[in-house]
């Protein structure tokens, strides 16, 4: 078994509006995969199909080598799930709720509840209805991780959490990866995915428009290179002719060069002139992300 999740031409139609269209995706065992897209793009629909909460209109889903519909029970035993819109039983205390969910897993994970709750500063004795949104989210995270599942499916895991608690979640995900677990997480926040995922899939309007590693995306990003020249400087036209250069702007002796992808040709072209100073800005994944969205719009 090489893949944790395999989506094959997965389609889910809801009348006209929402849904997902012919998704093909493979998530490898042991990787952290970020599923990225704006709200309403189809992230939650995809996730709920994987867990057999909803059934595909067409196409197939395999999880841990098992069929998502006929073998869902085995899949759910080996999977931890954090819903995107988490709803808990308001009348229960945190510990009652976690015990209930643990009991549905025949007690798996019971031993880790105390430890995880302490890590997230979660008061086990409080009623769910008295918790803030962030604290409810912590309950969701604890129940997803407690039984140490092979596959973690996290729909917007850090929603409602303060930055410190977000870091705790990132550490949990990092630890899960180190233990060889697979993490499939959705997010609409780019820096989050950039921080924890190795590969990303970008979904928009129900279609998967890109699957790439974070590094690949960064390589494709537009960088801004500022070069200050001495006596011997190239003209704008000369630089525009260099491979990958998108635009050039002159500010007295400084040229601001926007470049997409590899900088190799540019560096070699600059070598022929007197370069006094040079500064390159880190590629911003946000730009790539927005770029992909713009392309789709056109």
């Amino acid at each position, binding site marked *: 078994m090489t893949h944790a999740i395999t989506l094959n031409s997965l389609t889910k139609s809801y009348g006209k509006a929402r849904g997902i269209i012919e998704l093909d995706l493979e998530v490898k065992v042991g990787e952290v995969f970020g599923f990225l897209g704006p709200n309403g793009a189809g992230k*939650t629909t995809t996730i*709920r199909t994987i*867990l057999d*909460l*909803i*059934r595909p209109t067409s196409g197939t889903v395999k999880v841990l080598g098992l069929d998502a519909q006929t073998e869902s*029970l*085995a899949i*759910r*035993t080996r*999977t931890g*799930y954090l*819903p995107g*819109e*988490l*709803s*808990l*039983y308001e*009348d229960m205390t945190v510990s009652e709720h976690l015990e*209930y*969910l643990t*009991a*549905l*897993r025949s007690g798996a994970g019971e031993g880790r509840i105390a430890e995880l709750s302490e890590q997230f500063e979660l008061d086990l004795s409080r009623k769910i209805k008295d918790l803030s949104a962030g604290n409810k989210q912590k309950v*969701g995270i604890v*129940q997803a991780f407690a039984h140490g599942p092979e596959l973690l499916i996290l729909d917007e895991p850090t929603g409602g959490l303060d930055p410190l608690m977000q870091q705790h979640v990132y550490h949990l995900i990092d630890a899960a990866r180190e233990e060889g677990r697979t993490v499939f997480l959705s997010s609409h926040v780019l820096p989050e995915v950039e921080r924890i995922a190795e590969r990303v899939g970008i979904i928009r309007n129900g279609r998967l428009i890109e699957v790439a590693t974070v590094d690949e995306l960064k390589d494709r990003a537009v960088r801004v290179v500022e070069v200050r020249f001495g006596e011997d400087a190239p003209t704008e036209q000369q630089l525009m002719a260099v491979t990958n250069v998108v635009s050039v702007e002159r500010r007295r002796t400084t040229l601001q060069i926007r470049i997409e992808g590899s900088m190799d040709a540019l560096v070699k072209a600059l070598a022929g002139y007197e370069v006094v100073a040079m500064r390159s800005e880190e590629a911003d994944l946000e730009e790539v992300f927005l770029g992909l969205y713009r392309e789709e719009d056109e």
Partner: protein
Amino acid sequence: MTVFWRTLRSRKKSLLGWALGLIGLIAITVAAYPSIANQDGFSDIIDDYPEFVQEILGLGSGMSITEPAGYLNSQFFSNMLPLLFIIFLVSFGVRVTATDERDGTLDLVAAHPLPRWRLAVEKALAVLAAGTLLAILAILTFVVSTPPAGMDVSFAALFGATVSVFLVGVVFGGLAFGLGAATGSRGLALGTASGLAVATYIAWGLAPLIDAISSLERLSPFFWALAGDPILHGVQAGNALLLLGFGLAFVSLGIWRFTRRDIAV
């Protein structure tokens, strides 16, 4: 049976309230019997009512309100008790299905390793168990409270009458549960079950008045619950099984559909 116990426990307070209310209502009404017993004047007034009115009051088959069987039938079994069982079972049946789904709380539980049919069956059993508990308490209260009030009614009669009207609750509660499980729509489940309960109650009362539709009363669960006068002759097995069968069929169909459909967020 994790879901079964959790479902019961979630209604612990409500169940306690219902139990106390039911016991109190029965005990007080039964205790009022001596003030009406053998008041022939009262009985004569009702004897002058048209037959269908007597029937609706639970005083058919020559029963008199001034005698124990007639008194209990007119105060409980032809109106109050089936109504209470219907309200309890319908609202509980909708709560554990459609409300659980609408609140979004079903989502996380359904993603846990428990077959969907099992999840639904345990909930249905919990609702049935809670209703049965109330029915048992009602029977016990009748058994304990009737002798001091000077009523001589056999256990078989009290048991039979209570079980029969409890099964009317099972029919409508089963319908509410089934629709809630099948559609996830709270309004549809609640509206259909309570609407049909009212409609069939009216049909049972009024249909016999109009020759052309008099056989319509046979479509009413109330007819089958009271036919054969369980308060006089004990449980009518065939009628009881018919009602139970309908209740179980509604639940089963609902669960069948529930296992095959999408769960709403």
